[in-house]
């Protein structure tokens, strides 16, 4: 529940940044925070208290002598797989956004939203 | 059929003579009102003869040439399409040809002809006069139509003979007394229709020489002159049939048309002249309101 609330909080912080901040970089940071919030939410969804990560370690193999993991001992692995993808995508978006901002800066020498309101009405 | 044509010819000639005579009488009365002796009552005959026998004439073009004929034709047509004496097969003329609506539209025929001829003369003044005439026509036709439609609906016919038949049986069956307001509207419209003062701006001898026929002379003018006279008689007969109960014999017809004629003469001689738009506004207000009283009465009935 804490994770849930925290991630929601992060998402709203991110939204708040997009709503209020006038600086392009700050908006991007807001988006990243939102991403992080979502990622955290995904992880928390798969988390079950008292269980271990669904990772096959060599130590375990040697100890138990088998590849198979006790399913009842690990958390849901799928969200973790999903979050990896989501993180990658988030990075890609951030990279894209930042590169756009760099170009914008080179065009107008500014990264304030007020200077980018030509397209309207 | 052929005797009809013969009688039609006689009626035309008679109508012309009567029209010219009425014109002369009108001039005489006007003169007397002015305190003059005035011309003889036959002055118009003399004028007509003189015009017919002028030795030269000019023409401006085809329409100019044809217009007097249209004018004459329109006058004769109107006279022949209205029954003069009720019940007489001879003096009902060609009224089998059409009803009141036909007559109303045929009345425009001559005016249109004259207007076109006038316009063809190339004289700016004679082109101006028809525009005034048509505007004034739009003025007086409204009260006139009110009374015509009112009568038609009231008597359930647009046949002129039918309208006359509906008025038989004593003086109080006349529309003049049955529908006094319609009749007043119609008679005011009649003043406009005769272009008598105060609605004489069309001819306006003072500002625009003599109205449409400015360029007309000699024979042409005599045609127009006689056309106008016949047309006038035709209209008197029409109004007589509409409002004064028609006529059962020729004498009655003469008396009644002469009475209508006197109305016009006496109004004409005591009024100055309206401008076109004043005339139009006048026609669209007083006679219309008066006529609508009876019109609505008939509408509700």
């Amino acid at each position, binding site marked *: 529940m804490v994770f849930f609330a925290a991630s929601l909080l992060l998402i709203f912080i991110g939204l708040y940044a997009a709503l209020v901040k006038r600086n392009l970089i700050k908006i991007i940071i807001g988006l990243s925070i939102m991403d992080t919030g979502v990622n955290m939410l995904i992880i928390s969804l798969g988390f079950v208290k008292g269980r271990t990560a669904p990772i096959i370690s060599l130590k375990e193999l040697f100890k138990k002598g088998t590849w198979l993991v006790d399913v009842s001992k690990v958390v849901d692995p799928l969200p973790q797989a999903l979050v990896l993808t989501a993180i990658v995508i988030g990075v890609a978006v951030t990279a894209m956004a930042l590169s756009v901002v760099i170009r914008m800066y080179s065009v107008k020498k500014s990264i304030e939203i007020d200077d980018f309101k030509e397209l309207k009405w | 059929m052929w005797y009809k044509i013969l009688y039609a010819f006689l009626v035309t000639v008679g109508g012309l003579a009567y029209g010219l005579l009425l014109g002369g009488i009108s*001039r005489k009365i006007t*003169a007397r009102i*002015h*305190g*003059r*002796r*005035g*011309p003889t009552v036959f*002055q118009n005959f*003399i*004028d007509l*003869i*003189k015009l017919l*026998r*002028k*030795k*030269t*004439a*000019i023409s401006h073009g085809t329409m100019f040439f044809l217009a007097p004929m249209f004018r004459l034709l329109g006058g004769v047509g109107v006279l022949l399409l209205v029954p003069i004496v009720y019940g007489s097969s001879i003096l009902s003329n060609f009224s089998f040809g059409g009803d009141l609506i036909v007559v109303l539209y045929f009345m425009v025929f001559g005016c249109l002809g004259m207007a076109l001829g006038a316009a063809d003369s190339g004289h700016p003044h004679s082109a101006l006069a028809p525009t005034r005439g048509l505007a004034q026509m739009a003025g007086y036709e409204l009260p006139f139509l009110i009374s015509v439609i009112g009568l038609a609906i009231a008597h359930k016919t647009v046949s002129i003979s039918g309208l006359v038949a509906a008025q038989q049986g004593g003086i109080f069956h006349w529309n003049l007394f049955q529908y006094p307001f319609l009749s007043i509207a119609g008679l005011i419209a009649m003043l406009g229709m005769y272009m008598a003062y105060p609605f004489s701006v069309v001819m306006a*001898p*003072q500002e*625009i*020489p*003599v109205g449409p*026929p*400015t*360029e*007309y*002379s*000699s024979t042409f*003018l005599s045609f127009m002159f006689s056309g106008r006279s016949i047309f006038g008689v035709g209209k008197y007969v029409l109004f007589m049939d509409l409002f004064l109960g028609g006529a059962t014999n020729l004498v009655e017809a003469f008396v009644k048309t002469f009475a209508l004629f006197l109305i016009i003469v006496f109004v004409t001689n005591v009024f100055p002249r309206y401008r076109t738009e004043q005339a139009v506004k006048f026609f669209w207000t007083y006679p219309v309101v008066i006529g609508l009283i009876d019109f609505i009465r008939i509408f509700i009935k």
Partner: protein
Amino acid sequence: MKEKDYFLDDRPKKLSYSEVWEKFFNWARAQSLWVIAYGTGCGSIEIPPMVTSRFDAERFGVSTVGTPRQADVLIISGYLAVKTLKRVIRVYEQMQSPKYVVGLGACTVNGGMYYDSYNTVNLVDLYIPIDVYVAGCMPRPEAILAGFAQLMKKIKEGRADGWKQYIDNLDKYRKNQEKIIKNWKIPNYNW
């Protein structure tokens, strides 16, 4: 159509002199004289009294019209300037035959008090044929009426033939007119 044919450029045809019913028609013509309301000089002030209530010319069939096309009588009402002569010629020629001219006042006879003016036509008869002169300066309406009576008499007798003279001797009249009218190339005939 020609480039410019604003005006008919013909001479009028000579008119026949006699008709079978001529006498009767002459009577009608005499009884119905339509005067063009065109004043050339100061004499025109005498015409309104003549046609209105006091003297009532209409009782003789004399009435006024506004257009030369319908008029029978042209009144030269007093002195005639050269400038006015042009108009008079045009108006006169536009009138339809038979047509008559009444000269009013001394000026039409011999120039009257303007006889030595540089610009007054002294003898109008040289330029258009005058049927009746009414002398005086100015003639009173009674005199004008008398003149009209004279004109009627002439017409009835068939002697008022100025219009015939004019057409027959148009060349003569033109020559006279051209002598004094400088700035107008007078057309063959003003139709």
